[in-house]
């Protein structure tokens, strides 16, 4: 059993604090993704779990015990690095078997385990090559093979796909997910790519500036972002965020246009409150071109500035109160720029955030 627990973990470089007290419980065999913009402290957090970075304050536990003072080799974890860090002077076979050799396993065990890992990752043909003779995707695979060979308590991944081209990245993403289903193990995975986070995670940890903003399943984080940061970071295209004021039962935009306050949020707001109205493009759809019926819908008439057909849907750029807002047209037809359309707004999926704090009015 290897659950990982972070308890008020702080990282300081000299006087500068870059990770500000992180609390996180990761369950046995859970796939947790740390996601956030570059520089928010994801790698630092992961490296503290790995033991590659000193923990300035707080505790990290892997399994039953606190590991703060254990070197990486005693934590029984493996790690896949962004640049793979394969040993260039060793063949693929030696790369895979290196950890077992260091652990003084006998030859037969090493061969068996290397072959097993090679089998899982389809590396059988490549075992005698050196890393220089592999493509990017193959190196990636070897790096993962090196991680699974030792049967560790947990896998740590630091942006393992960011050096691959777009197509290979999608392919490897799927492979990582399959791998986790095959080799059930606790995984902590770091990425700045919210799509990777959504597709891979059992639970997503959204980070910003060394803080955790929200922890939840992909659907929780997508459907119930706790603040404007999470709302804009998760989901693509991002959620439209429009400043407005509550006037009675209306959300009034800066240009005087208004929408009714979403029914489910009616008792969460007060008259005169400055808010941010949040609406995903999927919920701003021309009448007759939505995805799901909304029990609580409203309408706005808007000019389309630009349209981007994607096949099954078309992204429509319009503006609400002078700010750009994106909508989607499912089952699309041709749209000419400047065309005026009537839009359905799925108010039961709309969000309201307090303008001062940025927090969702639901979570206040």
């Amino acid at each position, binding site marked *: 059993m290897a659950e990982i627990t972070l308890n008020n973990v702080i990282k300081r470089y000299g006087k500068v604090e870059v990770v500000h007290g992180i609390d996180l419980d990761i369950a046995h065999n859970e796939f947790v993704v740390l996601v956030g913009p570059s520089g928010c402290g994801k790698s630092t957090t992961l490296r503290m779990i*790995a*033991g*590659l970075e000193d923990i300035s304050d707080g505790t990290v536990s892997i399994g039953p015990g606190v590991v703060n003072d254990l*070197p*990486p*080799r005693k934590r029984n*974890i*493996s*790690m896949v*690095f*962004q*640049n*793979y*860090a*394969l*040993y*260039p*002077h060793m063949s693929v076979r030696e790369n895979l078997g*290196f*950890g077992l050799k*260091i*652990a003084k396993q006998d030859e037969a065990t090493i061969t068996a385990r290397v072959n097993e890992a090679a089998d899982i990752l389809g590396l059988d043909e490549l075992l005698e090559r*050196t*890393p*220089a*003779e*592999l*493509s*990017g*995707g193959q*190196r*990636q695979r070897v790096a993962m093979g*090196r991680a699974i060979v*030792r049967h560790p308590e947990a896998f740590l991944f630091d942006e393992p796909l960011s*050096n*691959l081209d777009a197509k290979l990245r999608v392919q490897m993403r799927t492979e990582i997910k399959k791998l986790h289903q095959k080799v059930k193990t606790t995984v902590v995975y770091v990425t700045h790519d919210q799509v990777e986070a959504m597709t891979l995670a059992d639970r997503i940890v959204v980070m910003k500036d060394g803080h955790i903003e929200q922890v939840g399943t992909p659907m929780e984080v997508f459907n119930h972002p706790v603040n404007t940061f999470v709302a804009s970071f998760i989901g693509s295209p991002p959620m439209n965020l429009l400043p407005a004021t509550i006037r009675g039962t209306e959300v009034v935009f800066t240009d005087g246009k208004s929408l009714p306050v979403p029914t489910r949020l009616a008792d969460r707001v007060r008259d005169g409150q400055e808010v941010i109205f949040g609406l995903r493009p999927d919920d701003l759809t021309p009448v007759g071109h939505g995805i799901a019926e909304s029990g609580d819908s409203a309408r706005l008439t808007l000019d389309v500035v630009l349209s981007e057909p994607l096949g099954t849907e078309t992204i429509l750029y319009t503006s609400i109160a002078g700010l750009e807002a994106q909508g989607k047209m499912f089952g699309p037809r041709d749209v000419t720029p400047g065309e005026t359309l009537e839009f359905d707004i799925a108010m039961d999926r709309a969000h309201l955030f307090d303008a001062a704090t940025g927090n969702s009015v639901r979570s206040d």
Partner: protein
Amino acid sequence: MMNGKLRKQIGAIATWVLTFILMVIICVPGLWVVLTAFRPNGEVLAKPPVWIPENPSLNNFAKIFGFGADQVAIPVPAYFANSLIIALTSTAIALLIGMSGGYAFARYRFRFKNGLFLGLMLSRTVPGIALSLPIFMIWSRIGLIDAKLGLIIVYVALNVPFTIWLIDGFFRQIPKEMSEAAQVDGCTRWQAFWKIEFPLAKSGIASAGIFAFLTSWNEYALASNLTRSTDSKTLPVGLMDFTAQFTIDWAGMSAMAVIIIIPALILTFLVQKHLIAGLTFGGVKG
């Protein structure tokens, strides 16, 4: 089209000719020394110059080693041993310090790091000969004149800045994730260094070693000041034994120069195959 092709060809030929001239300038003096080692002294100053020895012989070498009719009483074996001991020991020490220092500069953050590095480099801007008087005075106080240890210390000091600088560069090229991956894989820091980083920096360490060895092996100015007898005199200093008050045995000197060159050549050839740079290629990215 035709014009461009022609210009390219002329360019290629010019490059070739220039390289050839440069190589001639570099090689001819060395070639002259080697040829002279096989000719009688009388032929050296002949006018017009004789290029290819008319009666090539090993007489000069025989003389040096005390065979044949006229002997020169120069203790070459002793000088040779001194040179070897001093050059090898100082190189080994300079490499050890260079590896530790280079690794520290490449991997760790510490106070005054840049200042220290700059200081090391600046120390190389002082011509060695300018140091010879102070070193002589100190060495004579503590009894290191005419001692191998005295020269070894001087050569270590001379070589360390360069070995640190060179080895630092090589360690810098090795992503620190390699050592980290090894540590996650079960290595101690020490094991990670010897099993991963050292093999990858080997070519750099070998280059630094050759450089340090050749510097010590060929150094003349300081050695001529700090040595007196067969206890410590090195081969380059021994060359001066061929100068008498009124005559210089150029041919004998050349033979000795050849003897000095040979071990350096052998070492360079032995180490050369380790100088395959770019070993880190392929370990990272795609």
